[in-house]
């Protein structure tokens, strides 16, 4: 039988830090295992194979085929669980027989999906080797014979007069059937009968085994050739499938919300260029206004500072870069109208964290994390820094920022640093600004543009909205405490 073949392949590089997707708020829109897949590197060839698969999955009929496949795999998993703790010997045999049928069904199903690109083609080829075909034929033969034998065991009569006995099935009239027939002919509608779903208990199992010894012996012999562990290899596909379907669902959700989606080109040299890119984490927020923005991190201007109004979309911009990079790197479609991206071998984010009271102050913690990032960042890497060094006084914070910027400049790292230190405009880096509506300084456009001085963070109007402005605070009384 075939040895384990995965749908998706990964390369040997280091996975990205788990903190990266957490900073990107990915747990709000993707499952934990999906995120783990996004962190693992893959080769360029694998990247292209996955892109091809996701293009095919834009047709919901194909996605439905995969959902059905996943459902079949879950059924196999349930059968194996029941096999590990059967209620009776009869149930054990029966579940084992079912396992053979499910295994055969899955092999056929997987083979039929070869049109879905390289990952499935590989799998189909493995399942089509002469050895595997011979194996499946043998399993089929055993399954069919067991099916025939079980057919005779599926009905029986229990008599409870004096002592309980099991008789072989014979002609007997069901009282319910007789009643239903007579009553229906009076023009009375009867509700549909509902099936029970009761497991065969030990007592009945022993009686069946005793009643049909030859059949049970033959079934046992047939099934013993194919132990459960031999037939459980398809389960290894579950995680891969879940990843594919979770990403597909996210793409579908984004498209339904009007977000642009594309398969980005893979750049051969360091570059991050995207037109009308959007942050899909905002899909988790009801009534969020999602405004796409362009991203242009190119040789010559690989690293930029982003300044501007509070609540203007700066952190969102960082997430747009980070999330779409993770998706691209894993061979998934991204949320942009078009894009060309380099598969940076390393990416990291430095976002504010909660003070942990672990003996290290916030500023020191920031230094430690940043140093760790820079030490791990092979050139070129993608770095996303969010208000780093804002947890100290202005002079010191800006000094640390300048020192770090000096370190980054010659390295050729790509990235964006969000900051409220508006003096960064003098450091010689490209500047991005979160725009304010020129007609109404209280209105955010969520557009990120190049250039701009960004001298104000427009914090005062936000304070007024929540009656924390000075005039509102004067009118507000204090709560009377007696």
């Amino acid at each position, binding site marked *: 039988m075939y040895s384990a073949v995965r749908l998706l392949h990964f390369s040997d590089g280091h996975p990205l830090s788990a903190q990266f997707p957490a900073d990107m708020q990915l747990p709000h829109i993707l499952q934990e295992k999906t995120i783990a897949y996004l962190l693992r590197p893959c080769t360029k060839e694998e990247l292209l194979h996955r892109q091809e698969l996701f293009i095919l999955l834009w047709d919901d009929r194909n996605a439905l085929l995969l959902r059905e496949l996943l459902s079949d795999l879950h059924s196999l998993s349930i059968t194996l669980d029941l096999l590990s703790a059967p209620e009776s010997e009869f149930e054990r045999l029966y*579940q084992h027989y079912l396992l053979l049928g499910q295994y055969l069904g899955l092999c056929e199903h997987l083979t039929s999906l070869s049109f879905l690109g390289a990952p499935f083609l590989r799998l189909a080829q493995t399942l089509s080797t002469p050895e595997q075909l011979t194996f499946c034929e043998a399993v089929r033969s055993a399954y069919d014979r067991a099916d025939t034998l*079980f057919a005779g065991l599926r009905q029986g*009569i229990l008599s*409870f007069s004096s002592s309980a006995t*099991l008789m072989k099935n014979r002609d007997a009239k069901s009282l319910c059937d007789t009643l*239903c027939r007579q*009553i229906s002919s009076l023009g009375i509608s009867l509700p549909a009968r509902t099936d029970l779903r009761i*497991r065969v208990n030990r007592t*009945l199992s022993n009686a069946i085994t005793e009643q049909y010894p030859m059949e049970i012996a033959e079934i046992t012999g047939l099934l013993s050739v194919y132990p459960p562990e031999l037939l459980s290899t398809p389960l290894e596909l579950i995680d891969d499938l879940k990843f594919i379907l979770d990403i597909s669902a996210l793409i579908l959700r984004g498209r339904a919300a009007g977000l642009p989606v594309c398969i980005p080109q893979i750049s051969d040299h360091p570059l991050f260029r995207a037109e009308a890119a959007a942050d899909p984490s905002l899909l988790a927020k009801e009534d969020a206004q999602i405004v796409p923005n362009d991203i242009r991190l190119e040789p010559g201007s690989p690293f930029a500072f982003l300044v501007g109004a509070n609540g203007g979309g700066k952190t969102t911009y960082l997430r747009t870069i980070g999330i779409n990079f993770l998706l691209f790197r894993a061979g998934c479609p991204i949320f942009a109208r078009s894009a060309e991206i380099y598969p940076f071998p390393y990416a990291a984010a430095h976002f504010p964290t909660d003070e942990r009271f672990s003996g290290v102050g916030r500023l020191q913690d920031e230094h430690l994390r940043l140093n760790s990032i820079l030490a791990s960042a092979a050139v070129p890497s993608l770095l996303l820094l969010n208000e780093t060094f804002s947890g100290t006084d202005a002079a010191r914070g800006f000094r640390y920022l300048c020192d770090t910027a000096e370190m980054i400049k010659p390295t050729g790292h790509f990235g964006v640093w969000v900051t409220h230190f508006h003096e960064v405009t003098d450091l010689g880096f490209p500047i991005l600004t979160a725009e304010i509506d020129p007609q109404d300084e209280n209105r955010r456009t969520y557009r990120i543009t190049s250039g701009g001085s960004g001298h104000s963070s427009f914090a005062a109007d936000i304070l007024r909205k929540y009656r924390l402005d000075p005039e509102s605070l004067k009118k507000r009384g204090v709560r009377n405490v007696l």
Partner: protein
Amino acid sequence: MSCSLLYPEGIAPAAPMDRRILYHLSLDRAFSYISSDEKLTRRFFDVLLQPCGRETVLYRQAILRDLQADPQIFARLSSFAKVLRDISGDFHRASREVSMLRAGGAASLFSAQNLMQMQAKHLGDILRLLRSLDADLNSRRLRAEGLLALHRHIQAITDSSAASALLPLCSRLELFKSADLKCRYRLDKAGRIVAFEVVELEEEAVLQKRPHRIRRKVALPEGIPLQMTAADAPKFDSMKASALKEITQILSVACRDLLDRFAHLGDELAFYAVALKYIRTLAQKGSACSYPTFGDGAHLEFTDLRDLYLLMTVSGAEHIVPSSLQLNDNRGVLLYGDNGSGKTVFLRSVSTMQLLGQAGLPVPAERAQLSCVAALATQFSESEKGFLEATAAGRFEQEVRELAAMVDSLPAGSLVLLNETFQSTAYTEGAEGLSHLLRWFSDHGIRWILVTHLLQLDEYLKDLPVVRLHTSEGYRIS
């Protein structure tokens, strides 16, 4: 699927009229003499207040004629309805227990067996009751379409082969013991038990059909004894209980269906019960009693009509002055006369005749020819409403409100009966206001009869075709 004694097939009850009509026409007082059973009378009035079409009127008249001709028919039907009501009560009590039946254990098996036996008994009782009624009705001379339809409805059940097969089956189930249970299990493709049903082996079925044969012990083929574990015994009891419950549920559905088909009979017979008492009372009073005819066109013709309430209060009809009228069109009727000259009594008797006649009942007149009205409405001058009920409205405003409601709701073809309306204000103004309303009624196909002292109406309505009547000495109307 049910058969009504009040409405022919395909005809549904109309929306009921305002209950105050009963008060205005003193029907509540009149019928208190006829029937002391308030519940029965209330049901009678419920039917009375739903206006009927000609087809329904004739339908009921025919049934009443049959019930009058053979009193045993009514007695038999009432007895049937009563026994059915008793069975229904027992059945619903048992049904509540079925729904509370919990799975698990010998106690639940015992309960399941008892409930199955009870529901089998109920179904058997219903079938036997229907057969008995069928046999009785076969011996009666039925002419009314309603009674014939009911009999056919019953025969559709009792004459069927299904009923013949069900009766002995129900009898067997009544005596069923779970200790003799045989059940067939069936497994699905996943190896789970999907069905566990009670069966009868063929040999036993043959013996059932030929009960007079000398029974020989049926030798069952050998089976494998079950080695019951302590854990599994309750599971089997639970499965047996569910098998019995399945049969019980089928029996319950059948019982409920059959009970529902005839559940309405009791209420419908209440109408005829009071109707028959009414007819007997008229006879006791020596009053004329005739079934009005209903023709096309706008008829209001009657000969020697007597007021029902007055009839109830005197010893004999000879003490009541009858009235007669011949109207073959839709003109409104103005009735003038001195106080105490019989105007209100006339209005009341005409209204009562219309109401009772259109409900399919005979009327206290020598003859009557009427037309079906779409609705009947009355406005009788009342005392000012109680302090809490009234807003700032006085009597006049109350009357205006009532008339406005009529204008809003009455369809063409209705009959409006007005007794001294708008006399609670200046007569000239009242007359002028009322004249517009009466003209509106006439223009919209609504017939009206107005008892009034507003003589000014003559002037206001001089161009409107109306019938003018006057009371004269001796309570005569002309």
